[in-house]
């Protein structure tokens, strides 16, 4: 997990703000623990109160770790023009986010990018997105 799973404990990611939640962000996630995941999507839950993106992340030895990352509320994403088909199983993605406090392979995704750099399911990570 060393090479492809990069954890940046630095201020750079502090500018990446978490998405609007139905609860307090800090109830679940640790804003001092940003993370970048590169992997392949295995499933999408397009459900309230948040979508969830499941992905497999390989380390240098080829060992696969299963991760899950919380996305925005589906209603907000829908209003911003996204659908559950904008990200499919098998898609390679880079997710910038924040680790859960419980040390599980769980994150809050503030940005989801495809290999060509296009951001998908965007508009949910900005606290101004619904204003």
């Amino acid at each position, binding site marked *: 997990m060393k090479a492809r799973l990069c954890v940046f404990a630095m201020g750079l990611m502090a500018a990446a703000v978490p998405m609007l939640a139905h609860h307090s*962000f800090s109830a679940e996630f640790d804003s001092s623990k940003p993370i970048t995941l590169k992997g392949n999507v295995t499933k999408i839950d397009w459900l309230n109160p948040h979508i969830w993106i499941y992905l497999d992340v390989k380390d240098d030895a080829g060992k696969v770790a299963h991760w899950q990352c919380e996305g925005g509320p589906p209603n907000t994403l829908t209003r911003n023009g996204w659908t559950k088909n904008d990200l499919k199983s098998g898609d390679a993605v880079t997710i910038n986010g924040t680790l859960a406090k419980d040390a599980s392979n769980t994150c809050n995704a503030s940005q989801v990018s495809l290999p060509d750099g296009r951001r998908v399911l965007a508009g949910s990570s900005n606290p101004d*997105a619904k*204003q």
Partner: protein
Amino acid sequence: MKAPAYASFLAAASAAAVVTVGLLFLTPGPVAGQDAGKGGGKAAGKGGAKGGGGYQPPAGPTPRLANGKPDFSGFWQRPYSPDMSAGATDLNGKPYPPEDPQHRTVALDPANAPAAGRGGGGRGARVLPYTALGAQDWKTYDPSNGDYTGACLPFGLMRSINSPDPLQIMQSTTFFAELFEQNTWFHVFPIDGRGHTNGTPTWFGDSIGKWDGDTLVVETNNFNGRTRLDTNGHGHSDQLVLTERWTRTDLGHIDYEMRIHDPKFYTEDWKNNRQFLLRTDQQIMEYSCEENNKSLYEGRIKAPKFDQP
């Protein structure tokens, strides 16, 4: 993972409630503005633009009911207000001093943390006129220790108003119905001059509306004391009395004021002022908080524990 039984109950109750409210308004007055103009189209769009997307509401005069009173019916977009202190002033409009984030023992959400230069809806936190009890509550509140909203329990009236999810209003000469998209909750109260019911304390409280000219003044008391004012956790007691002043200034806008009176937690009354925007290009959507609340079901969020009254 199977949801707890109470979560299933809450989901069913929410759905039934919306049907009930809908039946109350089968013969409503004019649903002002809902069909007027199609401005904006699909806001934002792929690529991460804002939800507002340059949308402009339709122009026109304030709609009115048959009795001549303003009709607030419509689908309203409101500013997300995760920190009410940010836009807080005293009743004369004077802002409170800026708050030092280090004042707290628990860090604020980074999304909602204070930032200079932006008030009235989320940032630029200020020091509210706390009593000793209120200050202690604010300094020590820790959402990771059972934020009730993480369990999909009712946000309560204040936090529902502060939510970024839209609000459908349906109004007759007798009743005012707030249909919150957030978790598909509703709040219905009389506006025909009757008094408080003084019943069992509730999450959304006991509201009555009275007219002050063209402004609807809604007073709410009898809260159960289990809610917080906002996402960042400003507290209140069971003595909270909330006074909202609703003024539909024209077809597309509502001027909204929320006054907080709670002598247990605050030494003086204070208020927030906001503007709501009519959206004619969208409609309310279902929001079942319980259907996949993995964070609770998988134990990353703690369910709150309340003292019995």
